[in-house]
Structures are given as C-alpha cells and as structure tokens.
C-alpha cells in the first residue's frame, strides 16, 4: 500500500516474521546489505552514522536519531554529493507493529523537495548523474 503525502513517501509492508527478526534486518550490517545496496556500514545506536553503497555509484548516508528496538527507527537520509538531497536533508522513519505473529512495517520518507523545487531538482538530478558517470569513468 502506497500513499502520497506532501513531500513524503509512505509505504506499508506486512511481513510474516517477528518484529525482532525484522529489526535485525534494519540494523545489522550483514543482514541489511542482503536487501539494500551492495555495501553497508551501520553503527545503529543513537547518534551513530551509517553509509550505504546503494548501487556501486550512489552513496546514501546519515545518522540514527531514534533507535527503539524492535519498534521504531528514525534516521536522517541523503545522497553524498547530491545537489538537492544531501546527507541530513531528509528523514526516514520506520515503525514496526506486531500483528498476530507478523510485523506491519511502515516506512515514511519525509522532508523531500516540494513541487516548487521539482524543475530545479530534475536539473540537479541530471547534473548529479552526469558527475557520477564522469567520476565512474575515471576509475
């Protein structure tokens, strides 16, 4: 189930596993990298930082603001070097609710650039991709 909020994304996912298992996939580097990115370093404690190599080119990074196992995780989120969504500019909040032996995971990605910035953002996005592609070519 996906719904649009202003400057936000909300995704809900039901998982037939306990919140403890799901929480481990959010905070344990070895488990995390199996579902997101190609490399991850997570220091999952309040104030700790994380760095995710999303696809070998894009690096997402930020800091953990709230860690409340196995119920809630709040972290800042951005792409390194990105013109409009740099690290620290957006927030990802994940809540886990136990439901008859399963877990309902709700992810909210908040603070995204709004409608007015869309044009600027799209230009920035192409420039960002170009820079990354140029950087990739040097290796």
């Amino acid at each position, binding site marked *: 189930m996906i719904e649009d909020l202003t400057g936000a994304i909300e995704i809900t996912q039901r998982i037939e596993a306990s919140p403890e298992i799901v929480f481990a996939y959010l905070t344990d580097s070895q488990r995390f990298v199996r579902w997101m990115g190609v490399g991850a370093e997570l220091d999952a404690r309040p104030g700790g930082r994380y760095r995710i190599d999303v696809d070998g080119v894009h690096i997402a990074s930020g800091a953990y603001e709230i860690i409340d196992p196995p119920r809630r995780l709040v972290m800042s989120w951005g792409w390194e070097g990105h013109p409009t969504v740099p690290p620290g500019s957006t927030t990802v909040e994940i809540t886990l609710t136990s439901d008859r032996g399963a877990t309902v995971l709700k992810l909210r*990605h908040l603070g995204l650039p709004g409608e007015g910035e869309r044009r600027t953002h799209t230009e920035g996005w*192409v420039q960002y991709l170009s820079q990354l592609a140029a950087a990739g070519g040097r290796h």
Partner: protein
Amino acid sequence: MPRMQAATRNTPIEAAMNAIANPRRRQILRLVWDTERSAGEIAATVDEVSWPAVSQNLRLLKDSGLITERREGTHRYYRADRRALGPLEAVLRQMWTRDLGRLRDLAEQEARSRKNRHD
C-alpha cells in the same frame, strides 16, 4: 510507442545512468539541454568519428527518454526532455518498494528456518 514502454520499464535512474555512462552521449545531452538542434549540427559539434556512431547515441538517448526527436521533412531535431527522470518521489518510491520487498522475503525466510529448528 513500444520503444518508450521498453525504456520506462527500467527505473528512471537506471535508464538515465545507462544513457549517460558514455562521454559522447553526455556531450550530446549538454548540447541539446536548452536548445533544440538538428542531427547535422550535433554531428558537427561532438567529437565522434562517424555519423553512424552519433546516430546510435542519439537513438539510445531517445530510447532512454532523455531527449525527444522531432522530424521535419528529411531533417531530425533533438532536445533534452528534462521531465524524463521524473520527480524524486517516483525514484525513491520505486527504490523503497523494491528493497522492502526483499527485506520481507529475507525476514520471512529466517522466521521459517528458526521455526523449523524449534519444531
């Protein structure tokens, strides 16, 4: 337009990354970023050895949705379509939906194997 449908099956970021992986294509994209230019004008400006090579790069950029083509008589004109990459929300929504689907599969697999060990 079947070609457009094929291109949009990729995430915008994947299609764009493939298209701009090549320095010649990045050069073409910059050329037509703000101004519509004819195929001949583009071929004369880019550091490309042959017309077939330029033509192939134009086709790839067009298929990825990064540029649009307009035909007038025997001439073809190109310009960047900056909407092609879509808003950030669409890219992020695709990313999270895909990745959380993987998380679900892995967590459910682990839950089943733990249960089997305990039975």
